[in-house]
Protein backbone atom coordinates (compact mmCIF):
# COMPACT_ATOMS: atom_id res chain seq x y z
CA UNK A 1 0.00 0.00 0.00
CA UNK A 2 1.31 3.44 -0.84
CA UNK A 3 1.14 6.17 1.75
CA UNK A 4 -0.82 8.44 -0.57
CA UNK A 5 -3.80 6.08 -0.63
CA UNK A 6 -6.52 7.18 1.80
CA UNK A 7 -7.08 4.88 4.80
CA UNK A 8 -10.77 5.73 4.92
CA UNK A 9 -12.84 6.76 1.95
CA UNK A 10 -16.57 7.39 1.87
CA UNK A 11 -18.18 7.85 -1.49
CA UNK A 12 -21.70 9.27 -1.80
CA UNK A 13 -22.75 7.58 1.44
CA UNK A 14 -26.27 7.70 2.84
CA UNK A 15 -28.03 5.92 5.68
CA UNK A 16 -31.75 5.50 6.08
CA UNK A 17 -33.65 4.90 9.31
CA UNK A 18 -37.31 4.46 9.88
CA UNK A 19 -38.76 7.29 11.92
CA UNK A 20 -40.81 5.12 14.20
CA UNK A 21 -38.33 2.38 14.89
CA UNK A 22 -39.68 -0.97 16.00
CA UNK A 23 -42.76 -0.43 13.92
CA UNK A 24 -44.45 -3.62 12.94
CA UNK A 25 -42.72 -5.31 10.06
CA UNK A 26 -43.85 -8.31 8.17
CA UNK A 27 -41.33 -10.84 7.03
CA UNK A 28 -42.45 -10.57 3.43
CA UNK A 29 -42.01 -6.81 3.52
CA UNK A 30 -38.44 -7.15 4.73
CA UNK A 31 -37.46 -9.57 2.03
CA UNK A 32 -38.76 -7.55 -0.90
CA UNK A 33 -38.74 -3.97 0.41
CA UNK A 34 -35.41 -2.79 -0.90
CA UNK A 35 -36.36 -2.83 -4.54
CA UNK A 36 -39.86 -1.48 -4.06
CA UNK A 37 -39.01 1.58 -1.98
CA UNK A 38 -42.39 1.82 -0.29
CA UNK A 39 -43.37 3.66 2.86
CA UNK A 40 -41.34 6.81 2.24
CA UNK A 41 -43.02 8.94 4.92
CA UNK A 42 -41.77 6.68 7.70
CA UNK A 43 -38.18 6.91 6.52
CA UNK A 44 -35.59 9.59 7.06
CA UNK A 45 -31.95 10.01 6.17
CA UNK A 46 -29.58 11.24 8.92
CA UNK A 47 -27.32 12.16 6.01
CA UNK A 48 -26.93 11.50 2.30
CA UNK A 49 -24.28 12.05 -0.37
CA UNK A 50 -21.42 12.22 2.10
CA UNK A 51 -18.00 11.81 0.50
CA UNK A 52 -14.54 12.30 1.93
CA UNK A 53 -11.09 10.73 2.02
CA UNK A 54 -8.98 10.41 5.14
CA UNK A 55 -5.25 9.81 4.92
CA UNK A 56 -3.07 8.04 7.45
CA UNK A 57 -2.18 10.16 10.46
CA UNK A 58 -4.95 12.73 10.00
CA UNK A 59 -7.06 13.60 13.01
CA UNK A 60 -10.64 14.50 12.35
CA UNK A 61 -13.18 16.17 14.61
CA UNK A 62 -16.85 15.65 13.86
CA UNK A 63 -19.28 18.38 14.88
CA UNK A 64 -23.01 18.80 14.59
CA UNK A 65 -26.11 19.09 16.71
CA UNK A 66 -27.61 16.04 18.41
CA UNK A 67 -29.28 13.71 15.98
CA UNK A 68 -27.41 14.93 12.93
CA UNK A 69 -25.72 11.57 12.41
CA UNK A 70 -22.32 11.92 14.08
CA UNK A 71 -22.49 8.56 15.79
CA UNK A 72 -24.04 6.99 12.72
CA UNK A 73 -21.01 8.16 10.75
CA UNK A 74 -18.66 6.56 13.27
CA UNK A 75 -20.66 3.33 13.23
CA UNK A 76 -20.23 3.17 9.46
CA UNK A 77 -16.47 3.57 9.78
CA UNK A 78 -16.39 0.98 12.58
CA UNK A 79 -18.20 -1.40 10.24
CA UNK A 80 -21.10 -2.02 12.63
CA UNK A 81 -23.61 -0.34 10.35
CA UNK A 82 -23.97 -0.81 6.61
CA UNK A 83 -24.67 2.14 4.28
CA UNK A 84 -27.88 2.20 2.24
CA UNK A 85 -26.21 4.20 -0.51
CA UNK A 86 -22.66 4.67 -1.67
CA UNK A 87 -19.61 2.88 -0.36
CA UNK A 88 -17.47 2.94 2.75
CA UNK A 89 -13.92 1.74 2.35
CA UNK A 90 -11.72 1.29 5.40
CA UNK A 91 -8.29 -0.09 4.60
CA UNK A 92 -6.81 -0.58 8.05
CA UNK A 93 -7.95 -1.96 11.38
CA UNK A 94 -10.23 0.16 13.55
CA UNK A 95 -10.30 0.47 17.34
CA UNK A 96 -13.78 1.77 18.14
CA UNK A 97 -14.32 3.63 21.41
CA UNK A 98 -18.05 3.70 20.77
CA UNK A 99 -20.73 2.04 22.91
CA UNK A 100 -17.64 1.62 24.99
CA UNK A 101 -18.43 -1.04 27.57
CA UNK A 102 -20.45 -2.91 24.97
CA UNK A 103 -18.16 -5.80 24.20
CA UNK A 104 -17.69 -6.75 27.84
CA UNK A 105 -19.34 -9.85 29.27
CA UNK A 106 -20.87 -9.05 32.64
CA UNK A 107 -20.55 -12.59 34.04
CA UNK A 108 -16.83 -12.88 33.35
CA UNK A 109 -14.03 -11.47 35.45
CA UNK A 110 -12.04 -8.41 34.40
CA UNK A 111 -9.12 -10.68 33.52
CA UNK A 112 -11.23 -12.85 31.21
CA UNK A 113 -12.84 -9.78 29.70
CA UNK A 114 -9.47 -8.29 28.78
CA UNK A 115 -8.63 -11.47 26.87
CA UNK A 116 -12.09 -11.71 25.33
CA UNK A 117 -12.39 -8.15 24.05
CA UNK A 118 -8.78 -7.85 22.93
CA UNK A 119 -9.15 -11.20 21.21
CA UNK A 120 -12.38 -10.10 19.54
CA UNK A 121 -10.49 -7.22 18.02
CA UNK A 122 -7.87 -9.58 16.69
CA UNK A 123 -5.08 -9.54 19.25
CA UNK A 124 -3.30 -12.85 19.78
CA UNK A 125 -2.83 -14.27 23.27
CA UNK A 126 0.88 -13.44 23.19
CA UNK A 127 0.15 -9.82 22.33
CA UNK A 128 -2.40 -9.61 25.13
CA UNK A 129 0.01 -11.19 27.60
CA UNK A 130 2.55 -8.54 26.67
CA UNK A 131 0.07 -5.71 27.06
CA UNK A 132 -1.79 -7.11 30.07
CA UNK A 133 0.01 -5.31 32.89
CA UNK A 134 -0.11 -2.03 31.04
CA UNK A 135 -3.87 -2.39 30.52
CA UNK A 136 -4.45 -3.18 34.19
CA UNK A 137 -2.22 -0.33 35.39
CA UNK A 138 -3.86 2.18 33.15
CA UNK A 139 -7.36 1.14 34.21
CA UNK A 140 -6.32 1.18 37.89
CA UNK A 141 -8.24 -1.99 38.67
CA UNK A 142 -5.38 -4.10 40.04
CA UNK A 143 -7.28 -5.37 43.07
CA UNK A 144 -10.39 -6.29 41.12
CA UNK A 145 -8.86 -8.41 38.37
CA UNK A 146 -10.84 -11.47 39.38
CA UNK A 147 -14.08 -9.65 40.15
CA UNK A 148 -16.93 -10.23 37.72
CA UNK A 149 -17.44 -7.26 35.42
CA UNK A 150 -21.04 -6.82 36.57
CA UNK A 151 -19.86 -5.86 40.06
CA UNK A 152 -17.75 -2.98 38.72
CA UNK A 153 -18.87 0.60 39.23
CA UNK A 154 -19.73 2.42 36.03
CA UNK A 155 -16.54 4.47 36.32
CA UNK A 156 -14.42 1.33 36.64
CA UNK A 157 -16.16 -0.21 33.67
CA UNK A 158 -15.35 2.77 31.50
CA UNK A 159 -11.75 2.86 32.72
CA UNK A 160 -11.22 -0.77 31.86
CA UNK A 161 -12.95 -0.44 28.51
CA UNK A 162 -10.94 2.60 27.50
CA UNK A 163 -7.75 0.94 28.64
CA UNK A 164 -8.40 -2.18 26.57
CA UNK A 165 -9.63 -0.52 23.40
CA UNK A 166 -6.94 2.17 23.35
CA UNK A 167 -4.29 -0.55 23.72
CA UNK A 168 -5.42 -2.45 20.64
CA UNK A 169 -2.68 -0.86 18.52
CA UNK A 170 -5.01 -0.35 15.61
CA UNK A 171 -4.00 2.34 13.11
CA UNK A 172 -7.45 4.00 13.29
CA UNK A 173 -9.07 5.14 16.53
CA UNK A 174 -12.71 6.21 16.78
CA UNK A 175 -13.72 8.16 19.88
CA UNK A 176 -17.38 8.95 20.41
CA UNK A 177 -18.07 11.22 23.36
CA UNK A 178 -16.76 8.61 25.78
CA UNK A 179 -14.48 11.11 27.43
CA UNK A 180 -17.55 12.62 29.01
CA UNK A 181 -17.67 9.71 31.44
CA UNK A 182 -15.29 9.17 34.34
CA UNK A 183 -13.73 11.64 36.74
CA UNK A 184 -11.59 14.53 35.67
CA UNK A 185 -8.27 12.91 36.53
CA UNK A 186 -8.98 9.84 34.46
CA UNK A 187 -10.29 11.98 31.62
CA UNK A 188 -7.00 13.82 31.51
CA UNK A 189 -5.17 10.52 31.52
CA UNK A 190 -7.30 9.39 28.57
CA UNK A 191 -6.55 12.57 26.69
CA UNK A 192 -2.86 12.04 27.31
CA UNK A 193 -3.14 8.51 25.91
CA UNK A 194 -4.89 9.87 22.83
CA UNK A 195 -2.10 12.41 22.41
CA UNK A 196 0.49 9.64 22.56
CA UNK A 197 -1.40 7.63 19.97
CA UNK A 198 -1.60 10.66 17.70
CA UNK A 199 2.14 11.17 17.99
CA UNK A 200 2.57 7.54 17.04
CA UNK A 201 0.74 8.19 13.77
CA UNK A 202 -2.72 6.90 14.66
CA UNK A 203 -5.59 8.22 12.57
CA UNK A 204 -8.16 9.74 14.93
CA UNK A 205 -11.88 10.30 14.53
CA UNK A 206 -13.26 12.33 17.42
CA UNK A 207 -16.90 13.14 18.06
CA UNK A 208 -17.09 15.79 20.75
CA UNK A 209 -19.05 18.78 21.90
CA UNK A 210 -15.98 20.18 23.59
CA UNK A 211 -14.47 22.92 21.49
CA UNK A 212 -11.24 22.72 23.47
CA UNK A 213 -10.71 19.04 22.76
CA UNK A 214 -11.56 19.47 19.11
CA UNK A 215 -9.11 22.32 18.68
CA UNK A 216 -6.27 20.65 20.53
CA UNK A 217 -6.51 17.17 19.01
CA UNK A 218 -7.91 17.67 15.51
CA UNK A 219 -6.59 19.34 12.39
CA UNK A 220 -9.54 18.70 10.17
CA UNK A 221 -13.25 19.07 10.86
CA UNK A 222 -16.39 17.51 9.45
CA UNK A 223 -19.70 19.26 10.11
CA UNK A 224 -22.94 17.34 9.71
CA UNK A 225 -26.18 19.30 9.51
CA UNK A 226 -29.63 18.73 8.01
CA UNK A 227 -28.73 15.48 6.33
CA UNK A 228 -25.60 16.61 4.55
CA UNK A 229 -21.90 17.16 5.10
CA UNK A 230 -22.06 20.94 5.41
CA UNK A 231 -18.38 21.59 5.90
CA UNK A 232 -15.10 19.72 5.52
CA UNK A 233 -11.89 21.64 6.14
CA UNK A 234 -9.42 22.85 8.75
CA UNK A 235 -10.93 22.44 12.22
CA UNK A 236 -10.87 26.19 12.98
CA UNK A 237 -12.94 27.06 9.91
CA UNK A 238 -15.39 24.22 10.53
CA UNK A 239 -15.95 25.20 14.16
CA UNK A 240 -16.45 28.84 13.14
CA UNK A 241 -19.03 27.85 10.57
CA UNK A 242 -20.79 25.64 13.09
CA UNK A 243 -20.80 28.46 15.66
CA UNK A 244 -22.23 30.90 13.14
CA UNK A 245 -25.00 28.41 12.32
CA UNK A 246 -25.80 27.72 15.94
CA UNK A 247 -25.67 31.28 17.15
CA UNK A 248 -23.39 30.51 20.07
CA UNK A 249 -21.31 27.55 20.98
CA UNK A 250 -23.02 26.07 24.03
CA UNK A 251 -19.79 25.58 25.87
CA UNK A 252 -18.90 29.29 25.86
CA UNK A 253 -21.73 30.14 28.18
CA UNK A 254 -21.78 27.12 30.39
CA UNK A 255 -18.13 26.29 30.78
CA UNK A 256 -16.23 23.12 30.05
CA UNK A 257 -16.87 21.20 33.28
CA UNK A 258 -20.60 21.71 33.61
CA UNK A 259 -21.17 20.95 29.97
CA UNK A 260 -19.21 17.74 30.12
CA UNK A 261 -21.15 16.59 33.13
CA UNK A 262 -24.36 17.29 31.31
CA UNK A 263 -23.22 15.04 28.55
CA UNK A 264 -22.27 12.37 31.02
CA UNK A 265 -25.84 12.39 32.28
CA UNK A 266 -27.14 12.41 28.77
CA UNK A 267 -24.93 9.50 27.78
CA UNK A 268 -26.05 7.54 30.81
CA UNK A 269 -29.73 8.14 30.17
CA UNK A 270 -29.63 7.42 26.46
CA UNK A 271 -27.12 4.62 26.23
CA UNK A 272 -29.63 2.62 24.20
CA UNK A 273 -29.74 5.26 21.51
CA UNK A 274 -27.91 4.40 18.33
CA UNK A 275 -27.93 7.83 16.80
Amino acid sequence: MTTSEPVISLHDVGVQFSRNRRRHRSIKDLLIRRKLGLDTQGEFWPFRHVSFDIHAGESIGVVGRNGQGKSTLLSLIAGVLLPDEGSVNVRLGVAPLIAITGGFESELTARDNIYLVSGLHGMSNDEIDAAFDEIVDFAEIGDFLDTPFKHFSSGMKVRLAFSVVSRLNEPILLVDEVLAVGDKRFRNKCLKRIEQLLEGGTTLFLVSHSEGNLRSYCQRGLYLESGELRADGPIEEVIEKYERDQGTWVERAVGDEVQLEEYADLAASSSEDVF
Partner: protein
Amino acid sequence: MTTASLMGRPGGFTTTGTGRPGLRERLRRVIQYRRILALLVRRDLKVRYAGSTLGYVWSILDPLLMSLVYWFVFTVIFNRRVGFAPYILFLVLGQLMWAWFNGGVSGTVRALRQQAQMVRSSNVPRELWVLRVVVSKGVEFVLSVPVIAIFALCYLKAPSIDVLYLPLAMLMCFFLVLGFGLILAPLTVLVRDVERIVPIFMRVMFYASPVLYSVKDVPRHLHIALSVNPTTGMLVLARASFFPQELAGDVPEMNNSKQVIVNGHVVTHYVNNWHFVWHSAIGIVVIFAIGVFVFSRLERPMLKEI
Protein backbone atom coordinates in the same frame (compact mmCIF):
# COMPACT_ATOMS: atom_id res chain seq x y z
CA MET B 1 -7.95 -3.92 -1.88
CA THR B 2 -7.75 -5.17 1.62
CA THR B 3 -4.65 -4.87 3.68
CA ALA B 4 -4.21 -6.94 6.76
CA SER B 5 -2.64 -4.76 9.37
CA LEU B 6 0.51 -5.65 11.24
CA MET B 7 0.67 -9.04 12.90
CA GLY B 8 -1.81 -10.51 10.44
CA ARG B 9 -4.91 -9.21 12.15
CA PRO B 10 -8.07 -8.91 10.12
CA GLY B 11 -7.88 -5.35 8.88
CA GLY B 12 -10.04 -3.23 6.62
CA PHE B 13 -13.36 -3.76 4.92
CA THR B 14 -15.59 -2.28 2.27
CA THR B 15 -19.32 -1.84 2.65
CA THR B 16 -21.60 -0.56 -0.07
CA GLY B 17 -25.22 0.40 -0.40
CA THR B 18 -25.62 -1.38 -3.71
CA GLY B 19 -25.55 -5.12 -3.43
CA ARG B 20 -24.27 -7.29 -0.67
CA PRO B 21 -21.00 -9.19 -0.33
CA GLY B 22 -21.23 -12.51 -2.12
CA LEU B 23 -20.96 -15.95 -0.60
CA ARG B 24 -17.26 -16.18 -1.38
CA GLU B 25 -16.49 -12.84 0.28
CA ARG B 26 -18.50 -13.81 3.36
CA LEU B 27 -16.76 -17.15 3.59
CA ARG B 28 -13.37 -15.47 3.23
CA ARG B 29 -14.19 -13.11 6.09
CA VAL B 30 -15.40 -15.92 8.35
CA ILE B 31 -12.24 -17.94 7.66
CA GLN B 32 -10.14 -14.85 8.35
CA TYR B 33 -11.80 -14.61 11.76
CA ARG B 34 -11.59 -18.33 12.60
CA ARG B 35 -9.31 -17.65 15.56
CA ILE B 36 -11.94 -15.38 17.08
CA LEU B 37 -14.57 -18.07 16.48
CA ALA B 38 -12.37 -20.51 18.40
CA LEU B 39 -12.03 -17.93 21.17
CA LEU B 40 -15.81 -17.52 21.44
CA VAL B 41 -16.43 -21.26 21.46
CA ARG B 42 -13.78 -21.83 24.13
CA ARG B 43 -15.42 -19.05 26.12
CA ASP B 44 -18.83 -20.72 25.85
CA LEU B 45 -17.48 -24.08 26.93
CA LYS B 46 -15.56 -22.52 29.76
CA VAL B 47 -18.68 -20.85 31.08
CA ARG B 48 -20.55 -24.12 30.60
CA TYR B 49 -18.04 -26.49 32.18
CA ALA B 50 -16.09 -24.37 34.62
CA GLY B 51 -19.05 -22.45 35.97
CA SER B 52 -20.13 -25.38 38.07
CA THR B 53 -18.33 -28.53 39.07
CA LEU B 54 -21.13 -30.57 37.59
CA GLY B 55 -20.90 -28.68 34.27
CA TYR B 56 -20.38 -31.76 32.12
CA VAL B 57 -23.10 -33.66 33.91
CA TRP B 58 -25.58 -30.84 33.34
CA SER B 59 -25.03 -30.86 29.61
CA ILE B 60 -25.85 -34.57 29.24
CA LEU B 61 -28.26 -34.94 32.14
CA ASP B 62 -31.30 -33.69 30.28
CA PRO B 63 -31.09 -36.04 27.29
CA LEU B 64 -30.14 -38.95 29.56
CA LEU B 65 -32.94 -38.36 32.01
CA MET B 66 -35.47 -37.98 29.24
CA SER B 67 -34.18 -41.20 27.66
CA LEU B 68 -34.84 -42.98 30.96
CA VAL B 69 -38.31 -41.48 31.21
CA TYR B 70 -39.26 -42.53 27.69
CA TRP B 71 -37.67 -45.91 28.19
CA PHE B 72 -39.81 -46.43 31.31
CA VAL B 73 -43.00 -45.20 29.68
CA PHE B 74 -42.59 -47.20 26.51
CA THR B 75 -41.19 -50.47 27.81
CA VAL B 76 -42.66 -50.80 31.29
CA ILE B 77 -46.03 -49.03 30.99
CA PHE B 78 -46.76 -49.64 27.34
CA ASN B 79 -45.74 -52.72 25.57
CA ARG B 80 -43.13 -51.25 23.27
CA ARG B 81 -43.60 -51.94 19.59
CA VAL B 82 -41.41 -49.13 18.27
CA GLY B 83 -37.68 -48.80 17.78
CA PHE B 84 -35.12 -51.57 18.17
CA ALA B 85 -33.66 -53.38 21.14
CA PRO B 86 -31.83 -52.36 23.24
CA TYR B 87 -34.36 -49.56 23.30
CA ILE B 88 -32.40 -47.48 25.82
CA LEU B 89 -29.41 -47.24 23.46
CA PHE B 90 -31.83 -46.48 20.65
CA LEU B 91 -33.29 -43.63 22.72
CA VAL B 92 -29.97 -42.21 23.91
CA LEU B 93 -28.70 -41.93 20.33
CA GLY B 94 -31.81 -40.11 19.22
CA GLN B 95 -32.05 -37.90 22.29
CA LEU B 96 -28.43 -36.72 22.16
CA MET B 97 -28.69 -35.96 18.44
CA TRP B 98 -31.94 -34.11 19.07
CA ALA B 99 -30.41 -32.21 21.98
CA TRP B 100 -27.82 -30.76 19.58
CA PHE B 101 -30.43 -29.85 16.99
CA ASN B 102 -32.87 -28.42 19.52
CA GLY B 103 -30.24 -26.63 21.62
CA GLY B 104 -28.59 -25.28 18.50
CA VAL B 105 -31.76 -23.87 16.97
CA SER B 106 -32.99 -22.39 20.28
CA GLY B 107 -29.54 -20.92 20.88
CA THR B 108 -29.15 -19.36 17.44
CA VAL B 109 -32.54 -17.68 17.76
CA ARG B 110 -30.99 -15.55 20.51
CA ALA B 111 -27.48 -15.52 19.05
CA LEU B 112 -27.59 -11.91 17.86
CA ARG B 113 -30.09 -10.43 20.32
CA GLN B 114 -28.25 -11.69 23.34
CA GLN B 115 -24.97 -10.31 22.02
CA ALA B 116 -26.53 -7.00 20.93
CA GLN B 117 -23.82 -4.94 22.60
CA MET B 118 -21.05 -6.96 20.99
CA VAL B 119 -22.71 -6.84 17.58
CA ARG B 120 -23.04 -3.07 17.94
CA SER B 121 -19.43 -2.50 18.89
CA SER B 122 -17.35 -5.02 16.96
CA ASN B 123 -17.19 -5.59 13.23
CA VAL B 124 -16.44 -9.30 13.30
CA PRO B 125 -18.51 -11.00 10.59
CA ARG B 126 -22.04 -11.23 11.97
CA GLU B 127 -22.27 -14.88 10.87
CA LEU B 128 -19.75 -15.63 13.60
CA TRP B 129 -22.33 -15.10 16.36
CA VAL B 130 -24.52 -17.80 14.80
CA LEU B 131 -21.63 -20.14 14.01
CA ARG B 132 -20.41 -19.86 17.58
CA VAL B 133 -23.64 -21.37 18.92
CA VAL B 134 -23.71 -24.16 16.34
CA VAL B 135 -20.10 -25.12 16.99
CA SER B 136 -20.47 -24.93 20.80
CA LYS B 137 -23.47 -27.25 20.70
CA GLY B 138 -21.59 -29.52 18.32
CA VAL B 139 -18.64 -29.76 20.69
CA GLU B 140 -21.06 -30.60 23.49
CA PHE B 141 -22.42 -33.42 21.35
CA VAL B 142 -18.94 -34.74 20.67
CA LEU B 143 -18.25 -34.69 24.40
CA SER B 144 -21.36 -36.79 24.96
CA VAL B 145 -20.23 -39.52 22.56
CA PRO B 146 -18.52 -41.43 25.43
CA VAL B 147 -21.98 -41.80 26.98
CA ILE B 148 -23.20 -43.51 23.82
CA ALA B 149 -20.12 -45.74 23.94
CA ILE B 150 -20.82 -46.71 27.55
CA PHE B 151 -24.40 -47.71 26.77
CA ALA B 152 -23.21 -49.65 23.73
CA LEU B 153 -20.66 -51.53 25.85
CA CYS B 154 -23.28 -52.32 28.50
CA TYR B 155 -25.38 -54.06 25.88
CA LEU B 156 -22.33 -55.70 24.35
CA LYS B 157 -22.90 -54.11 21.04
CA ALA B 158 -19.48 -54.17 19.43
CA PRO B 159 -19.02 -51.14 17.23
CA SER B 160 -18.76 -52.01 13.56
CA ILE B 161 -17.67 -49.94 10.61
CA ASP B 162 -21.22 -48.53 10.76
CA VAL B 163 -20.20 -46.06 13.50
CA LEU B 164 -18.83 -43.95 10.65
CA TYR B 165 -22.43 -42.99 9.92
CA LEU B 166 -22.34 -40.90 13.08
CA PRO B 167 -19.90 -38.25 11.76
CA LEU B 168 -22.03 -38.02 8.62
CA ALA B 169 -25.12 -37.39 10.74
CA MET B 170 -23.19 -34.75 12.65
CA LEU B 171 -22.25 -33.02 9.41
CA MET B 172 -25.93 -32.94 8.44
CA CYS B 173 -26.89 -31.59 11.86
CA PHE B 174 -24.23 -28.88 11.65
CA PHE B 175 -25.46 -27.46 8.35
CA LEU B 176 -29.11 -27.85 9.30
CA VAL B 177 -28.73 -25.89 12.54
CA LEU B 178 -26.54 -23.32 10.78
CA GLY B 179 -29.15 -22.89 8.06
CA PHE B 180 -31.97 -22.41 10.57
CA GLY B 181 -29.77 -20.12 12.66
CA LEU B 182 -28.90 -17.83 9.75
CA ILE B 183 -32.62 -17.39 9.11
CA LEU B 184 -33.79 -17.06 12.70
CA ALA B 185 -31.05 -15.00 14.38
CA PRO B 186 -31.53 -11.78 12.35
CA LEU B 187 -35.27 -12.38 12.08
CA THR B 188 -35.66 -12.37 15.88
CA VAL B 189 -34.07 -8.93 16.07
CA LEU B 190 -36.62 -7.56 13.62
CA VAL B 191 -39.69 -9.60 14.54
CA ARG B 192 -39.73 -10.30 18.26
CA ASP B 193 -42.42 -13.03 18.11
CA VAL B 194 -40.04 -15.46 16.47
CA GLU B 195 -38.55 -16.17 19.88
CA ARG B 196 -41.93 -17.46 21.05
CA ILE B 197 -42.84 -19.40 17.95
CA VAL B 198 -39.64 -21.43 17.73
CA PRO B 199 -39.95 -23.43 21.01
CA ILE B 200 -43.50 -24.44 20.11
CA PHE B 201 -42.42 -25.43 16.63
CA MET B 202 -39.52 -27.44 18.06
CA ARG B 203 -41.77 -29.37 20.40
CA VAL B 204 -44.05 -30.35 17.55
CA MET B 205 -41.02 -31.29 15.49
CA PHE B 206 -39.79 -33.54 18.27
CA TYR B 207 -42.80 -35.81 18.01
CA ALA B 208 -42.92 -35.54 14.24
CA SER B 209 -39.33 -36.74 13.95
CA PRO B 210 -38.12 -40.31 14.45
CA VAL B 211 -36.53 -39.74 17.87
CA LEU B 212 -38.70 -42.05 20.00
CA TYR B 213 -39.52 -44.36 17.14
CA SER B 214 -37.88 -45.64 14.02
CA VAL B 215 -38.91 -44.71 10.49
CA LYS B 216 -39.96 -48.34 10.03
CA ASP B 217 -42.72 -47.80 12.65
CA VAL B 218 -44.32 -45.12 10.51
CA PRO B 219 -47.10 -46.27 8.19
CA ARG B 220 -46.21 -46.08 4.52
CA HIS B 221 -48.71 -43.39 3.62
CA LEU B 222 -47.03 -41.02 6.13
CA HIS B 223 -43.56 -41.52 4.69
CA ILE B 224 -44.01 -38.39 2.62
CA ALA B 225 -44.18 -36.38 5.87
CA LEU B 226 -40.97 -38.00 7.08
CA SER B 227 -39.30 -37.25 3.78
CA VAL B 228 -39.94 -33.50 3.93
CA ASN B 229 -38.66 -33.39 7.52
CA PRO B 230 -34.93 -32.63 7.19
CA THR B 231 -34.11 -34.17 10.56
CA THR B 232 -35.31 -37.63 9.47
CA GLY B 233 -32.28 -38.60 7.44
CA MET B 234 -29.95 -37.18 10.08
CA LEU B 235 -31.56 -39.32 12.79
CA VAL B 236 -31.68 -42.40 10.56
CA LEU B 237 -27.94 -42.09 9.92
CA ALA B 238 -27.13 -41.48 13.59
CA ARG B 239 -29.14 -44.56 14.56
CA ALA B 240 -27.62 -46.67 11.81
CA SER B 241 -24.26 -46.32 13.52
CA PHE B 242 -25.42 -48.98 16.00
CA PHE B 243 -28.67 -50.28 14.48
CA PRO B 244 -28.06 -51.46 10.90
CA GLN B 245 -31.77 -52.38 10.68
CA GLU B 246 -32.52 -48.67 10.47
CA LEU B 247 -31.03 -48.39 6.99
CA ALA B 248 -31.12 -51.90 5.64
CA GLY B 249 -33.83 -53.14 3.36
CA ASP B 250 -33.91 -56.90 3.85
CA VAL B 251 -34.75 -57.19 7.51
CA PRO B 252 -37.99 -59.12 8.00
CA GLU B 253 -39.13 -57.19 11.06
CA MET B 254 -39.48 -54.01 9.06
CA ASN B 255 -42.72 -53.18 7.32
CA ASN B 256 -40.93 -51.97 4.26
CA SER B 257 -41.77 -54.81 1.97
CA LYS B 258 -43.96 -54.48 -1.06
CA GLN B 259 -45.67 -57.36 -2.85
CA VAL B 260 -45.29 -57.00 -6.58
CA ILE B 261 -46.48 -59.36 -9.25
CA VAL B 262 -43.77 -60.09 -11.77
CA ASN B 263 -44.62 -62.52 -14.60
CA GLY B 264 -47.49 -63.92 -12.61
CA HIS B 265 -45.36 -64.63 -9.52
CA VAL B 266 -45.70 -62.74 -6.27
CA VAL B 267 -42.30 -61.22 -5.43
CA THR B 268 -41.49 -59.43 -2.20
CA HIS B 269 -39.49 -56.24 -2.70
CA TYR B 270 -37.64 -54.72 0.20
CA VAL B 271 -36.98 -51.03 0.13
CA ASN B 272 -34.04 -49.71 2.08
CA ASN B 273 -34.15 -46.39 3.91
CA TRP B 274 -31.41 -44.51 2.14
CA HIS B 275 -34.03 -42.38 0.38
CA PHE B 276 -34.77 -40.68 3.73
CA VAL B 277 -31.11 -39.72 3.95
CA TRP B 278 -31.02 -38.29 0.43
CA HIS B 279 -34.24 -36.36 0.91
CA SER B 280 -32.95 -34.87 4.15
CA ALA B 281 -29.62 -34.03 2.55
CA ILE B 282 -31.44 -32.13 -0.19
CA GLY B 283 -33.63 -30.43 2.39
CA ILE B 284 -30.60 -29.37 4.42
CA VAL B 285 -28.85 -27.93 1.37
CA VAL B 286 -32.00 -25.96 0.54
CA ILE B 287 -32.42 -24.66 4.12
CA PHE B 288 -28.73 -23.72 4.28
CA ALA B 289 -29.00 -21.84 0.97
CA ILE B 290 -32.11 -20.02 2.18
CA GLY B 291 -30.24 -19.20 5.41
CA VAL B 292 -27.31 -17.64 3.57
CA PHE B 293 -29.70 -15.63 1.39
CA VAL B 294 -31.93 -14.46 4.24
CA PHE B 295 -28.97 -13.52 6.44
CA SER B 296 -27.41 -11.37 3.74
CA ARG B 297 -30.79 -9.68 3.15
CA LEU B 298 -31.57 -9.03 6.81
CA GLU B 299 -28.10 -8.04 7.98
CA ARG B 300 -28.51 -4.37 7.08
CA PRO B 301 -31.91 -3.74 8.75
CA MET B 302 -30.87 -5.97 11.67
CA LEU B 303 -27.85 -3.76 12.42
CA LYS B 304 -30.12 -0.70 12.59
CA GLU B 305 -32.59 -2.30 14.95
CA ILE B 306 -30.26 -4.14 17.30
